[in-house]
């Protein structure tokens, strides 16, 4: 899922993220929306989701415009934004088969049956 992808970096690199995604097979799933859970993903100062990298990845997947160019100011109460974020991070574009490509070294990491191999 794209939430996991946002954390991934090619091992042994300094800036090997975000990994480019080459999709062969993907699916969209449904998962329960919880606004507090989703809000925490972009909460400052403990934010872990790299929003810029997420937007870049979405553009690569042909999903431009799914999310606004920046996290809105009062995101905690912005349900429309949170639902869109939840959908992107947890539901849409779950890659079943494909490849992740390191932007720094070009190294390719396969994804098979939804499981990336990052060795």
């Amino acid at each position, binding site marked *: 899922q794209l*939430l996991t992808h946002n*954390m*991934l*970096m090619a091992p042994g690199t300094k800036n090997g993220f975000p990994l480019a995604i080459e999709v062969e097979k993907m699916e969209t799933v449904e998962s329960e929306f919880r606004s507090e*859970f989703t809000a925490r993903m972009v909460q400052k100062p403990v934010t*872990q989701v790299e929003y810029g990298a997420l937007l870049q990845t979405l553009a690569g997947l042909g999903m431009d415009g799914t999310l606004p160019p920046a996290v809105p100011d009062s995101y905690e109460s912005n349900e429309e934004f949170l639902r869109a974020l939840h959908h992107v991070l947890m539901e849409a574009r779950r890659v079943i088969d494909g490849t992740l490509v390191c932007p720094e070294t070009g190294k390719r990491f396969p994804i098979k049956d939804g499981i*990336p191999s990052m060795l």
Partner: protein
Amino acid sequence: MPPKDNVECPASLLASQAALEEQHVRRVYDAIAWQWHGTRYKAWPRVVEFVRSLPHGSLVADLGCGNGKLAPACAESGLAAVGCDFSSELVRIAAREMRMEALVADCLALPYRDASFDAALSIAVLHHISSVERRRALVSETMRVLRAGGVALFYAWALEQQEGVSNHGAGGSGGLRRTKRFAARDVLVPFHQRDSTPRRSAELEAAAGGVHVPDKRATVFQRYCH
């Protein structure tokens, strides 16, 4: 894991470090994954306690997730957990059977950005790492992927065990002593995979050096433990 019949790990084997872990940890787990999953489904209480203490929405890295047995506790606590393990067979079980977001990776070279997780779990992994330097590297890598203020739980078997713990009223002083259960500091512990185990793979068993013992109706593998 009650270590029965364990033997000292030969020094030359111990010196091979990564090769030792490849042969006597990764390949063995790949070969025994299904029986392992069938017999290790209960998450340890203190680990579950730790998981439950984490705030909702925390990003948790299960480093060495095995069969994904912590996935249910993480989900129940409203956490976003990502598991990784270097046994691809175990990762497959974690993803399919335990519905964990999981990937194949090396705990000494994690595929995660610096400071990307709120919490990390390293359960029963350290004792499969074969040198002080590598164990230190595992701890460093774990801390690298934690954000400032993040927490990690490391759980490993200890050579020294508390005296009198399993002998209530035996009058022990409660101090630590070196247990006699382990033959040495680094050991090979046998694992018996019953012949009746479903989903066995002759290929994986051969790669892991399994030895069939007809009287026990099982194939025996040697797991490395520190």
